[in-house]
């Protein structure tokens, strides 16, 4: 025992010595603490390290400290916990966190920095407007720059459609006709990834398809209970109901889980799926290497009502933007803000966007990024990537409003109740009305102001 205790003592000393903090010395250098949230596969640490090295070589005196900050949720939690004197200088966070960050964090508006650029106008107009929408508030102030963005698209098994002599559907009626033709006991015709906590994203596509996007530019407006959104919810629910229960009989009840949907498509268990462009790269790779390779088709999400081809195209955007944070008790110096802004410009440059898009499958957020390699040659080889870009013309702003977190919880819960069959289809209208009443309660104070 005596020996054990002296060993423990030694251990304490050794651990103590090893734990002395790595000193961060006061330097003339400006250090940028850059938090990145991951939402795609791949060796992202290495890719970011490459960008940082290149940037530091071009900008002596600025050090980029890369900090992996977990998922989007984890990153948001960390940033909010850091309070009004945060450690973070620049972060990649969900584009839809804008309203949350405007009220609860120290992000700084970027419009003034853009105005201060020599070619500020040229810089900002080069971004896809659909991607800028979530970075801009109702007054036109820009708060965040698109970095890793995505949008849902329709993936279809082109071989199956060709065998059956079917056209790629462009409206919801055709979508169901094709799905029903391709449904077999071993295969779903159409999978909507709406099981789980996040039905709101795919739901927004259908709301747009039926002509009433859930949100507009005013952060005080949310349209959850409208005839169009009701039609959207009913359609989504029917996809998962058998014919005898008034459904279309083409998918599982309540939809499928987000993560499982691509592998069901790859393994031939689903003929068509709605999924994010962020899955395009892994789906293409996996199908090529799979047991039964087939041609992967990609198309715009079909428009809503029958015979309205093209009029009702629509999909929300998704993904992350770049934000710059200030420190309220010791505000950032001009040099520090300048350094952070340069890093943001660098990451959003056409060269980096083209490379990042090609390496990860995100949609490069600037027009000019698509005119240069490596993206240019990638699209030449896989035209599927171009489809996602072209759909942006019809894309709508992703959900964001004041009290965004609370309202998303409300919408997701009501949708889940209807989709899972906890409520019958007849009760859907009631559920939407209840949700809208709750939402209005939350937004009322903002409307008066």
């Amino acid at each position, binding site marked *: 025992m005596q020996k054990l205790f002296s060993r*423990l003592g030694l251990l304490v000393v050794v651990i103590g010595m090893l734990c002395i*903090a790595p000193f961060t010395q006061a330097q003339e250098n400006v250090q940028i603490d850059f938090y990145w949230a991951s*939402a795609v596969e791949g*060796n*992202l640490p290495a890719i970011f390290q490459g960008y940082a090295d290149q940037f530091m070589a071009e900008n002596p005196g600025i050090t980029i400290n890369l*900090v992996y900050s977990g998922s989007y949720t*984890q990153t948001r939690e*960390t940033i909010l916990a850091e309070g009004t004197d945060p450690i973070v200088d620049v972060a990649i966070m969900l584009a839809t966190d804008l309203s949350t960050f405007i009220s609860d964090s120290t992000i700084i508006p970027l419009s003034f920095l853009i105005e201060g650029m020599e070619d500020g106008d040229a810089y900002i107009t080069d971004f896809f407007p659909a991607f800028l929408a979530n970075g801009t508030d109702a007054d036109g102030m820009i708060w965040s720059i698109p970095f890793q963005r995505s949008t849902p698209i329709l993936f279809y098994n082109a071989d199956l459609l060709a065998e059956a002599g079917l056209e790629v559907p462009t409206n919801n009626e055709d979508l169901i006709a094709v799905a029903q033709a391709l449904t077999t006991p071993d295969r779903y015709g159409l999978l909507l990834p709406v099981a789980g906590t996040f039905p709101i994203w795919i739901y927004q596509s259908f709301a747009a398809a039926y002509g009433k996007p859930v949100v507009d530019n005013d952060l005080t407006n949310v349209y959850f209970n409208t005839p169009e959104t009701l039609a959207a919810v009913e359609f989504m629910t029917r996809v998962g109901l058998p014919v005898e229960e008034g459904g279309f009989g083409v998918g599982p009840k309540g939809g499928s889980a987000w993560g499982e949907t691509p592998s069901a498509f*790859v393994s031939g268990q689903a003929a068509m799926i709605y999924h994010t462009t*962020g899955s395009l790269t892994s789906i293409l790779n996996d199908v090529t290497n799979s047991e039964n390779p087939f041609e992967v088709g990609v198309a715009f999400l079909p428009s809503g009502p029958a015979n309205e081809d093209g009029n009702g195209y629509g999909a929300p955007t998704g993904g992350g933007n770049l934000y710059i944070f200030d420190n309220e008790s010791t505000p950032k110096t001009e040099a520090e803000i300048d350094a952070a802004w340069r890093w943001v410009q660098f990451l959003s440059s056409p060269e980096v966007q083209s490379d990042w898009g090609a390496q990860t499958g995100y949609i490069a957020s600037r027009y000019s990024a698509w005119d240069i390699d490596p993206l240019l040659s990638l699209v030449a080889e896989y035209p599927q990537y171009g489809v996602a870009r072209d759909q942006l013309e019809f894309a709508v702003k992703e959900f964001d409003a004041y009290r965004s977190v609370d309202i998303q919880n409300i919408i997701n819960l009501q949708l889940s109740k209807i989709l899972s069959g906890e409520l019958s289809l007849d009760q859907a209208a009631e559920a939407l009305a209840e949700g809208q009443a709750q939402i209005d309660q939350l937004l009322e104070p903002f409307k008066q102001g």
Partner: protein
Amino acid sequence: MVNKRNGWSIIADILTMIVSLLWVAPLFFAVLISVRPSSDPLSVGNIFFGRSITLENYQQALELAPWAWHYLTSVLVVLGVLVVQIITITMAGYAFARMKFFGRNILLFVLLIQLMIPSGVLVVQNLTTMRQLDLFDTRWALMIPYWASAFGVLLMRQTFREIPPELEEAARIDGANLGQILRFVYIPLSIPTYIAFSLVSISARWNEFLWAAMVTRTAEVRPVTTGLSQLFSATEAGTNYGQLMAGTLLVVAPLVVLFIFFQRRFIESFASSGLK
């Protein structure tokens, strides 16, 4: 207890096997899925081995993070917490088990709040505290909040109370002081509990994520779970189970080795504790 090879014993053996097999099935498939390429979902090919076997999931998981630093940090933190915990829970456990003092029950309940308050709601305040103490982004910040363990105190209190008070009285009559009483009476008789506690403490700290991610930023002072979390973060494309399982198995491997070692000690300690 009863060691006769009778009918009951055979039934018990069979039961043991069935339960163990049920329990181990998820691990079995986790290992299989970790060597499956992502282009082969489980519904494709042979249910056990798919069409081919690959180590690429392990390779990709290993490339994602500076694992050597992460492992070093985790080992230091786990040991640094355990050593101090053993001291604090022994002292407090004895006090609560064998001493009468004013406010004993109230203080015990105050301690128990540590088990009952959701740690997530304490994180923001504790992060501020660590920044004020200038310990932010150090390994100390990963350890200090865990140096006191209400779980451990409760466990030692319960264990020490099982030890016959006569043994302590006898030692006292022989002139032993408190330190000697703990060292020669209480601690040796509680070795199985210490080992059980160590296992639990080690695996809890080894797998701790929320606080670690919150209070560290530098890769060198971050533990293994921060590396692993890159695999757990739900991606837009969905979870890559192959890589996730590969990463999980890599992270848990040291604990498995430790368990095998501990589990032998566990039996030996029983044989040598000499409790009669």
